[in-house]
């Protein structure tokens, strides 16, 4: 794939990742988020974070299976969107549900296991987002960067467990997420057992376009 096509693909991904946010904002402005808008926004942003986390983890297996190495272009954007929607998920909870009460949010977070697990998933993504730049990849070096970014697995696990834990009875959807995650992590496990030396790739730091 040519450089300019890749840049276009990145742009395409950037636009599409933002579409749900735009629609959510648009619906919120028109009071079209249903009877419980805050809950709707929290739920939607949480789902989006999970979807983007799983998409991020899908890149490497897909790349290896298809041999389409250029797919790696999408990983950073997908990962950053996952972090973005997870942060938004938390911020809406903090502002509109907890009314900006730091103590109220913290005490809930510590008391409720599912909130604690969710918060863990979010916090784990912070260093990943911070080290997502080319400069940070260079500074850390491929090996350390790869090791650090395995935290993405922890974030996805935390996200899925967090979702599973807060559902009342109908666990079909969280289980579907768990099944996809199991597949994605299972692929990596099998791959590493078959080829003990193989490592997930770190994107090579490229000069800024």
């Amino acid at each position, binding site marked *: 794939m040519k450089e300019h096509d890749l840049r276009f693909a990145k742009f395409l991904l950037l636009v599409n990742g933002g579409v749900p946010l735009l629609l959510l904002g648009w619906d919120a402005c028109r009071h079209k988020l*249903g*009877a419980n808008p805050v809950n709707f926004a929290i739920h939607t942003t949480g789902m989006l974070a999970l979807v983007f986390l799983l998409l991020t983890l899908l890149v490497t297996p897909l790349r290896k299976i298809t041999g389409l190495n250029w797919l790696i272009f999408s990983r950073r954007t997908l990962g950053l969107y996952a972090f973005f929607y997870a942060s938004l998920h938390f911020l809406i909870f903090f502002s509109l549900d907890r009314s900006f009460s730091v103590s109220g949010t913290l005490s809930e977070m510590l008391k*409720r296991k599912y909130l604690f697990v969710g918060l863990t998933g979010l916090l784990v993504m912070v260093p990943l987002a911070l080290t997502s730049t080319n400069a940070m990849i260079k500074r850390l070096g491929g090996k350390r960067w790869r090791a650090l970014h395995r935290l993405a697995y922890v974030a996805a696990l935390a996200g899925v467990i967090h979702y599973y834990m807060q559902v009342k009875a109908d666990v079909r959807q969280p289980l579907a997420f768990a099944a996809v995650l199991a597949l994605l992590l299972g692929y990596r496990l099998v791959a590493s057992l078959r080829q003990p030396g193989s490592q997930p790739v770190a994107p090579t730091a490229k000069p800024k376009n």
Partner: protein
Amino acid sequence: MIGREQDYPSASPCQCRDCAAPTRGGKSRLTHTGRLLGLDRRAQNEPEQERGRQCPGHLKSEMSHQLKEPDKIPAGEITDPAVYFNRRAFMRAGIVAASAVLTGLVYRRLNRVATGTIDTPPLQGLTKPVATSAETAGFRAADQETSLQDITHYNNFYEFSTDKEGVADAAAKFQTNGWQVSVEGLAQKPGVFDLDDLRKISPPEERVYRMRCVEAWSMVIPWAGFSLSKLLDRVQPLSAAKYVAFETLLDPKRLPGQQSGVLDWPYIEGLRMDEAMHPLTLLASGIYGRALPPQDGAPIRLVVPWKYGFKGIKSIVKIKLVATQPRTTWSLQAPHEYGFYANVNPKVDHPRWSQATEQRIGESGRRPTLMFNGYAEQVAGLYTGMDLRANF
């Protein structure tokens, strides 16, 4: 055109080696979007070193070299580079737009918000009792009523869907013709009542009750119905009857949610006899002066305003007077999370979330949850000396 300005139109100076014209500052004047959409000539040619610094016009003529003598190509046959690159930009803009629309449609499909109107018939002979005592004071909550739209499009009714926003749609075609309620068990005069029989027991009264869901949200609902005690009086319970057990219709064809194993079907609930006989305990057949729409439990449901919403069993077909505490759906599903009593209590949290506050539907921010959902004055006496933490 997306790029504001281009540096390659045939008339303007070009940077390619075949053009003698000097470069014009060298820096692209394209917008970033324009570059991404493919308007940037250099971005496209750079990776292919062999073409080097060639402008599209020259590129075109060079490629044609093998086919025709360049001077034999009529000038009009050569695609104007501006057109050539506009086509690419146009296509890319199309891809961006089409993909965004597709993403938007997927989002909409997965995040549907319930809409729709309620057209159930108005109830005949609805009365609005005036508060005359402490007990009847509970009949009309002074709170702002929740809109009919919200009451009918945000429902927990797993027999139709586990998605609160999806129940109204899933329940729209539910038919209640020929509905019967069997009142049986430990009674002198058990019987089967159709909706007309029930209407004859008492004309519907409007009761404005707060409704507190165990999920920590709440509504204020103008129900229509009559006290359950009036029906129970009719069948004359035996003194051995200590509890009342309720059952929802079991019909997986009409209640498609019952095809899944999310809960044990049919939905069952129960009350202690004194709770069932309390004047606040309502057998409801309407809201906002109209017949109950399917998503809210048509044609007849239970409302116990000082208990969490899941005690208000919907679409009732059986009421049984029994001697021992009946089993209830949610306490079977998760015994440590949902008890038999399920009285609204801000001091006893759900194991997974706080019950101290609630999101009143239609309000912003949370409000504190009241003991017995604000009906302590009317019902606290039922639980004197009882450990409400143990009997949650």
